[in-house]
Structure formats: C-alpha cells, structure tokens
C-alpha cells in the first residue's frame, strides 16, 4: 500500500502529505510496463512519480457523484468497417519487411514465445 510521508510540498499541490511510492511498487509497475530500469533510475523515478501522483491526487477533492466518465469527446458511435481484406502494395510490404530487426527471408525472427 502507499506510504504517506510528511515532505515539503511542490508549489501547487493541495495535500499536506506526498503520496510516496515504495521501491517495490516502482519495480512492480516497471515489470507491468516491460521497462528494465537501473537502480539509479528506479530511485529518481520513485521520487518523480511520487510528486506527479501527488499533484494529480487533487482530483479526489472534486465531487463526481453521479457523473459518467467521458473518454471520447466527439459524437460518433459504433463506427464499423466492412470485414474485407484491403491488402497492401508491394512497396509497403517491402518497407515493413525491411523494418524487421531480425529476419530470415521474408519472415520475422523473434525469441521463442513458449520456452
């Protein structure tokens, strides 16, 4: 769970305490995000993320009782596309294959998924 520490506020924050992430939490998030971090990076990230999360936690003060979440700001609903193969040009295909980091012929080579 979150540790709460009394630390100097960043100008503009509302809370008296800063939400502080633990090192374990930072490691957990990094694992979910598939980001390898050095120990030094973990430490500075922990501080930076904590102060950013502290800033955004002011959202808690806003009354949103009965308010529906808004994720899409325009008015369209259910934009469907026909289920048909459009394919791509030979030029597009070549660029895609050239972008492969590792290949054999036209095939993308990757690490084994099941090992």
């Amino acid at each position: 769970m979150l540790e709460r520490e009394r630390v100097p506020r960043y100008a503009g924050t509302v809370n008296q305490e800063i939400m502080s992430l633990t090192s374990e939490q930072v490691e957990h998030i990094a694992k979910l995000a598939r980001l390898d971090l050095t120990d030094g990076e973990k430490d500075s990230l922990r501080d930076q993320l904590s102060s950013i999360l502290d800033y955004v936690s002011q959202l808690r003060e806003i009354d949103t009782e009965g308010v529906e979440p808004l994720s899409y700001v325009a008015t369209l609903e259910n934009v469907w596309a026909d289920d048909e193969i459009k394919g791509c040009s030979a030029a597009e295909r070549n660029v895609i294959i050239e972008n492969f980091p590792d290949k054999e012929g036209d095939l993308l080579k990757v690490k084994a998924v099941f090992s």
Partner: protein
Amino acid sequence: MAEKRWSSVELVEAALNEAEKSSEGAKAFVGLFAERARSQAVESDARRAQGEPKSDFDGVPFAVKDNMCVAGERLSCASAILRNYRAPYSAGAIRRLEDAGMIPTGRTNMDEFAMGSSTENSVYGPTRNPWNREMIPGGSSGGSAAAVAEGSAIVALGSDTGGSIRQPAAMCGVVGLKPTYGRVSRYGLVAMASSFDQIGPLAKTTADAAALLGLIEGHDPNDSTSVPLREESRLSEAIGAEIKGLRIGLPAECFGEGLDGQVEETVRSAVEKLVQLGAEVREISLPRMTTAALAAYYVIMPSEVSANLSRIDGVRYGAREDGESLSEVYGKSRGRGFGAEVRRRVMIGTYALSSGYYDDYYVKALKVRRLIARDYERAFKDVDVIVTPTSPTTAWRIGERVDDPLANYMADIYTVGVNVAGLPGINVPCGLADGLPVGLQIIGRHFEEKVILRAANALEGEVGRLKK
C-alpha cells in the same frame, strides 16, 4: 508560382537549403526527404506547364513533424528506439496535401513521442528558439515552430495533445492551430494519447494556417474517430476579419497566479485591440479549466500513452536489444530505447490503469473530464470565443527545467483544458516581452474553426508581424 516568378523546383531547392542551414542554427530539422521532394517538384512544374496544377498550392513545400508517416521515409518520433524505422505508408493528412500537389521536404525535431513542452527530450538534442538561441522553442512541435519562425519552412504540420502546437507557436511567434478533435485524420500520426491527439498547421499567417487546415481536414475511413464535416463547417473560402459583436470571455483563472506580468500586459492590450474592432469582452470563470484539467490530463494522457506505446517493443520494428527470453527483449529494448520522459509517462499510465488504482485514478479523471466538457459548454452559451494567454511565460532557458518534470507540465496549464474537451484552439502572436514572443490563445466551440480564425485574423491585422 502561377505568375512564374518561382518554379516548384526552385522553391523546393530553396527549402532544402534552408533546412540544411538550420542544422547550424536552430536545428529545426532532423532529416530531409531530398530525393523524393526534388522529383515531386519536377512533376509539379510539369503539371503547371500543362496548365493542370492539382490546386493553387501545387508545388509548395511543407515541413512535417517527425511523428507523421511519409511513405518510404524515416520516422523516428525523435526516439532512439525508432532511429532506423521507415514509414510504410503516408499519413492521411500528408496524402491530402500531396493530392493538392504540396511537397513534404523533411521532418522536424520534437520531444520524444510528443512528450514534452520544450523539444529538449529529443534523441537529436534540442532545437533552439530562432528569437534567442539560448532559449527553448517550446514543444513538442518545437522543430516545426522554429522552422516556420526562421523561414526554413513556409508552413509545417505539427501535432497537439495538450498544447504541442499552440505552445511552441507562442514561444516562436507563429500561428499554430489545433483543430477540433476528429476534424483531421490521425491515420499515420504515431499515436500518443488517442482521445486528445490532433494534427494541425503552423504558419506565419492566419491565412496560411486556414489554407492548410482546409486541405487536411475531413473524414478519413482509416481513422474511425474522424468526423464527417458538415458543409458549413468546412474552410472553403478565405477567412474574414469582421468581429463586430463577437463575444469574448476571459477566464479569471487564466489571468491570475503564475502568469508573468509582461505576458499578461501584452495579452490584455491585444484583447483591447479586439474590443476596438467591435468585440465585446467579459470576464468569466472556469475554475476547472486549469489545475483540475492539468491533473485529469496527467492521468488520462499517460494511461493512453502506456497503451499506445506497448506496441513499441523491439519485436516487429525498432531497435531490438538481445535477451535470454522474450520478456527480457521487451524490458531491455524499451528500457534502453525510451528516454526518461517517455519512461515516466508510461509508468504513470501503467500505475493509473493497474488493478486497485484504475477506479481511483483513471475512471475518476474521466469523470472530471466530463465536468470540464460541461463547464465549457455552459460558458459557450454566453460567449463565442474564450481568450487566454497561450503560455504563462515566454520561452525559458535550455536546460533550466530538465530536472523538474512538473515545472514542464505547468507550461501547458492554459492549453490542456482545450484537448480535454476536444475544442479547437489557435495561438496568435500578439507582441514581444524582453525580445521574446508572446502568444494569445483563442478557443472556440466544437467545429467553429472559422470563428477562431476570423478573430485571429482580425488581431493579426492590428498587431502586424513581430519584428526582432
């Protein structure tokens, strides 16, 4: 060009030269499409010679932010992880400009994956503000803004998620417009935050910005969030400058604490000019459009970023690091390939969406988003446009804010609310403070780009061009 004073080949050659020269100065460009542009220029001149130009803009060169696909050309989003990537197809907006005969000449510098307000978060190093090379050009479309300001591009495309067109336009003293969400196709724009992103024009004048917008706007079946435009919304004719009776709202929250005194003075006297032209001004209150909007933005945007950037994993494209397992390939490729700001935002988003925090952060922020959208709706019952300073300060020194992410985020305090609600917004240069440009932002109702452009055009007529 219709008068044969310039050929497209000459224009494009001049543009390529200026872009090259920029590398010793502002460093607006990170790559050129020289071969492609030159052959397109030849074709353009041939069309004109036959009397068959594709449009009035056939043969005119433009610059492209390094996050939009130009078929066969490099695309890196100023990131190490995409250093060698080539776009397989052209973005919808690029295609529309090419259909009109316009020619992309090169890609401009930006903050990595469009995350930043200073163009310092770039694998190529910072772009410098043409007004003062010690200063940042703003971001994330800093390269595009600097290019237009210094003249190494006539017009440029940028992208805006929380202010990334408007803020650098303000820092560099050029016009920058973020369209209504859904007006311009996002197909071929590397997605940052899909419910905020829009491509838009940067130009020296409002007329040029309007012309460019008129070409790139419109429904694209490849972008399911692009909205079919009503005929009356389209930018089909020249924008006027008649603003008698236009009702302008000045939100008290954007003229208070944190705003630099000289910036405020410059913006207020610009507003006075609009009043002299017949506009009506009143003070309004939008308490959630600044800090609450910034807080909601810095939850929703990183959440969407964390999802959008999960495709960048070193597997199918990009820089792949070796590892013992697939998991290690992911971790090393992304850990080494992404810069610090990108890693920060991916982490925040991952946290906000993770089990146990999803409701408290992400869903909560979406609810606040709806409140903010409603606030604007209510305000627009009494006013036609909302005017604010674009940025609380003028450009700051390169390196000054690199160790303080939150200080950088604060730069967008007046611009993010606009993306949160999906409204159109434009930056118009309105004066100088200590030799650095000051920008004024005009926000309009959904799809009322004509109204904000008209007001911008009117102001531009009074202010004139900024001079060093």
